[in-house]
């Protein structure tokens, strides 16, 4: 893909989330991306999320590291970091664990802080392992159904019902 402002290949893909007409993608070469992002910092609101993300990545990582990060995928919901960068939305609660190190600088850019100081659920939120496993199994079941692997889908359904009814997890996962 070519840069929107010149003939060079576009190496920066920025999604603007604050446009009134909805998210807008901008594809730029490094030089134009730098100009674009510098102009961003003066005029745009603080939460121009993807702009900040691209800026931060540009400063801290090589193209190779970037490509590697983009391929990183959440084992629970299956979203890749590239997909998150494009859409500006995460896929599940586990993304905050799986991409924690990559998200922290971004959160700091947006909020000027990395630590929650507000209220906490008073009754606890249940077991995160169990919750992530449920998301994962439901996704696997859906894949099995679309691949017409009904036997596997039935097994997965059973496992899901077990977890939902509070039985112990039989296959502890890395998640």
């Amino acid at each position, binding site marked *: 893909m070519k840069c929107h402002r010149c003939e060079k290949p576009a190496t920066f893909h920025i999604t603007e*989330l604050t446009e*009134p007409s909805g998210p807008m993608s901008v594809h730029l070469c490094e030089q134009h991306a730098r100009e674009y992002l510098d102009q961003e910092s003066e005029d745009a*609101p*603080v*939460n121009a*999320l993807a702009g900040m993300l691209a800026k931060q990545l540009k400063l801290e990582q090589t193209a190779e590291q970037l490509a590697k990060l983009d391929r990183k995928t959440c084992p*629970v*919901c*299956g*979203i890749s970091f590239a997909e998150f960068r494009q*859409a*500006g*939305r*995460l*896929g*599940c*609660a586990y993304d*905050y*664990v799986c991409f924690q190190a990559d*998200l922290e600088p*971004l*959160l700091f850019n*947006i*909020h*000027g*802080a*990395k*630590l*929650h*100081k*507000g*209220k*906490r*659920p*008073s*009754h606890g*939120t*249940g077991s*995160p392992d*169990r*919750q992530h496993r*449920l*998301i994962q199994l*439901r*996704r696997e079941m*859906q894949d099995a159904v679309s691949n017409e692997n009904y036997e596997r889908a039935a097994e997965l359904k059973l496992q899901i019902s077990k977890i939902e009814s509070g039985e112990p997890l039989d296959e502890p996962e890395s998640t």
Partner: protein
Amino acid sequence: MTVPYKLEELAAKCGQWLKGTGPESDIVISSRIRLARNLAEYPFVRRASQDERLSIAKLVRTRIESIQGWENVLYILVNELNDLDCQFLVERQLMSREMAEGEGDRAVAIDPEEQFSIMVNEEDHLRIQVMFSGLDLEAAWEKIDKIDDALERKLNYAFHDSFGYLTACPTNVGTGLRVSVMLHLPALVITREIEKVFRSLQKINVAVRGLYGEGSQFMGDFYQVSNQITLGRTEKELVQTVKEVVPQIIEYERRAREFLVNESEQDLHDEVSRAYGILCTAKKISSEETLHYLSKVRMGINLGLIRSVDIQTVNKLFVHTQPAHLQKIRGHQLSVTDRNIERANYLQRHLGHKDGSDLPEM
């Protein structure tokens, strides 16, 4: 009772937040707080399958219906509503435009007093909002905190020790809290001071934006002030950030009004009287024009230049003259031209009455 019937009932009433009561209600229309929450056992909405969205909508419904004291809360399946009903709920500020235009199983739970509503499967699994008339952010926070606690006892929220309540967009993570105050600032607009005031506010983590009416029409004199960040401060601190800047804006608006009265009372009186005259006598009027003139009339009432109508009536007219409201109250769909005629009739009936209690009968 079927859902459409309940919506008709809602159309015939007026939300608490429009009462024109509460502190500083001559300038502050409403105080709104929303919390973004997600369920730990499901992927965020954009990543959820149709089946998962349906399960979430069903689960939340069951849990809401089991909360003591919430027996009268309406649970409306937005995906089963027609466009008119969706637009009606958006005009009423009970759900977002994104919710109306979304897809898949989604719902909105509405308190009959319209103090709170809960969107299910918008960008996050739950978007809880509370609206109060005037500047009353503490009351709004106390109310939403209790609602959140009641829901939390029934649902497993996605929560992270360091990052707090987890949301689909990292701009909402932490408290998931957005505090918004809607202000009516016609004098700052007339004196062109508005830009200057807002530029100074942006330096202190507060966002300001104009409000849009039907489609992308700009409702010129209404502005919303809200917090920009959600992580790293307590809910009360965030409420306080917004609460501290609002009195400054109110003060600027009052000064601008005073200036206008001192410098050109005759011109101002003429302008608001003409606006009132047009609203009372027009035979066809668009919603854009209506908002424009109602805004002037509202300022005229606050300055004591118009005495034959009260603030509450004008507040209600801002909402009840919008397209979906007119059609819901009338009971059937109307073309743009018919709506403009209907709107003019409606305005004539309700302006000039000191007591707006007969709203919104036709």
